[in-house]
């Protein structure tokens, strides 16, 4: 499988699998250890990195929601130099392309990060995260600045507000691909502290909105690869994005909830045909995987059998 996820160029990025985790989901690459085998994914996208260090946001940063969650981190990171110093070796050893997610709130910083990445063998592409309140002019400036300072492809992750308008600006400024969309921002009341918290919303209900936007972008920019992201929780969700015309898919918060889901999705969209029942995936894919499902099924069956013994059969 060869999937070109950026516009044709000498550095265009070609993946062997259309599935990756969204920026911030896997950290900088060592967090999940053996729980997720990164080389099964199409690419590794780093947590957001800025030119200068950023501290975490204060106060409550996680609010539980019905079938979802609000998370606000403040994009803490040590700054691009420190991050590269610490993780370069790990990334060089990775068997899949590394895409660095760069916080795209400041043209100057984005430009400097691009120059820095241009010189880094460990990183193959940039994903620029665009601020929700950015204007088309700002997007043009930020994306253009980054694109002019590196020959590596610059993917642009769009906010879910004004997506189409901002996509036009990004494409005009040289975006190598579009990532649609960042989780929408929202405000929710933290049930513990009673305070209103602003952050990003994650959950399966995000998918229908994002799927519709992806379709719009694909129709509008037939020549620009679009990566779909938002609310992917199952293989079918991922396939829906592909069917809508996305070249690839990013999986986000379900990875936190059920880490192995990410691998299941990658395996499925990577073209591995499921020939046996789900429990059998374990052996083919990742030792230990499928355990829980198999046991859950066994337990459920045991329980049903016991229940049927308990319940009277007479009418």
């Amino acid at each position, binding site marked *: 499988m060869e999937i070109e996820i950026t516009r044709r160029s000498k550095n265009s990025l070609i993946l062997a699998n259309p599935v990756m985790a969204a920026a*911030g*989901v*896997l*950290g*900088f690459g*060592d*967090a*999940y*250890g*053996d*729980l997720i085998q990164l080389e099964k994914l199409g690419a590794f996208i780093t*947590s957001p990195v800025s030119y200068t260090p950023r*501290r*975490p946001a*204060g106060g*409550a*940063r*996680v609010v*539980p*929601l*019905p*079938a*979802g*969650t609000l*998370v*606000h*981190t403040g994009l*803490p990171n*040590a700054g691009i130099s*420190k991050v590269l110093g*610490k993780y370069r070796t790990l990334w060089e050893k990775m068997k899949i392309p590394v895409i660095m997610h760069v916080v795209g709130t400041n043209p100057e910083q984005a430009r400097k990060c691009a120059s820095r990445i241009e010189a880094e063998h460990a990183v193959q592409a940039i994903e620029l995260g665009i601020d929700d309140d950015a204007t088309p002019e700002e997007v043009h400036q930020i994306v253009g600045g980054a694109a002019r300072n590196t020959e590596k492809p610059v993917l642009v992750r769009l906010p879910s507000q004004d997506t189409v308008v901002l996509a036009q600006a990004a494409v005009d400024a040289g975006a190598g691909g579009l990532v649609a969309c960042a989780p929408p921002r929202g405000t929710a009341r933290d049930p*513990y*502290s*009673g305070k209103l918290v602003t952050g990003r919303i*994650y*959950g*399966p209900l995000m998918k229908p909105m994002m799927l519709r936007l992806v379709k719009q972008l694909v129709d509008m920019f037939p020549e620009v690869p679009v990566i779909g992201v938002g609310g992917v*929780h199952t293989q079918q969700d991922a396939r829906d994005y592909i069917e809508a015309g996305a070249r690839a898919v990013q999986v986000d*918060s379900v*990875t*936190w*909830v*059920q*880490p*192995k889901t990410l691998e299941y999705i990658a395996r499925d969209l990577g073209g591995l045909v499921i020939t046996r029942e789900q429990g059998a995936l374990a052996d083919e894919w990742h030792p*230990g995987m499928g*355990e*829980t*499902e198999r*046991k*859950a099924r066994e*337990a*459920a069956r*045991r*329980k049903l059998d*016991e229940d049927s013994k308990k319940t009277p059969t007479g009418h």
Partner: protein
Amino acid sequence: MFGIAQGALGVQSYEELALFGSSFSACGLIRKYSFHTNDEQTMREYTGIIERTVRLNEHYQHLHLSVEGLGSDLKPGQSFLARRMPERWEPYLREQWWPVDLKTDEVVIERPANILYEPGETVSLLGIIGQPYRYKRTLRNVLLIAYDTPPSPLVMSIPLLFKHHVSVTMVLSGAATQYPTNRLPPELEVIQADDDLGWTNMVMTVGWADQVFVVVRPDDEMERFERVWKRFSELRAGIDKNYLFAVMQTALPCGVGACLACLTPLREGEMCVVCTQGPAIDMTALPFSS
């Protein structure tokens, strides 16, 4: 009986931390600015089967879970991120489940009584989360404090401490007084404090303790820990390092150090990743205004 491995006291002792960095490290085994310590133990997904549920009183219940492959590696301070099967998206994120007792391949979890769990139910457990509590080698007296929250994160340490001839006092304040203490070891001294963390003989209890571990209601952890800090500051001339610990119950979306939502700033620009380096943080490292 506890099946906790030897070495939980001693090998993991706090003094050893100095080996890991020149600067004072309050949170897990980290050095300054180094985010990660996950190499310590492999994170796994375990399958738990609820074998028995025991209702303690109207507020609390115990779930007896058989967990294959768990062995006896779990130490006080460590926990799981749990998810009930079959898949539902409510609650969405995994919940932090605190073990209060451990036998080989069986663990007892403390949960609110108003949630219905059923024997035979399967639970996915991501773990082991966090670092064990680090006790002083010279430990004689430990004070455990639960302030408006159940003392569950502290309970598993009690029999272990008694086994090492450490005497243990538990202070319950506010909502924590609903906790059913009748199931705790009889050697444990239990103090029912007032709602604002006051009790008679406070000066003595605090002075006599070699180490103190505190859990607070997670509505506004930092403010509550600061209140505890102030109370202790009034009672002691100065609070030394390695004496007073905040046991954090920060929300943990991923539990493995990936999402950085649990990153907590310390003094002097240090950071603590609560899921991998917590739950206990030395309060002298917390950036209180006072």
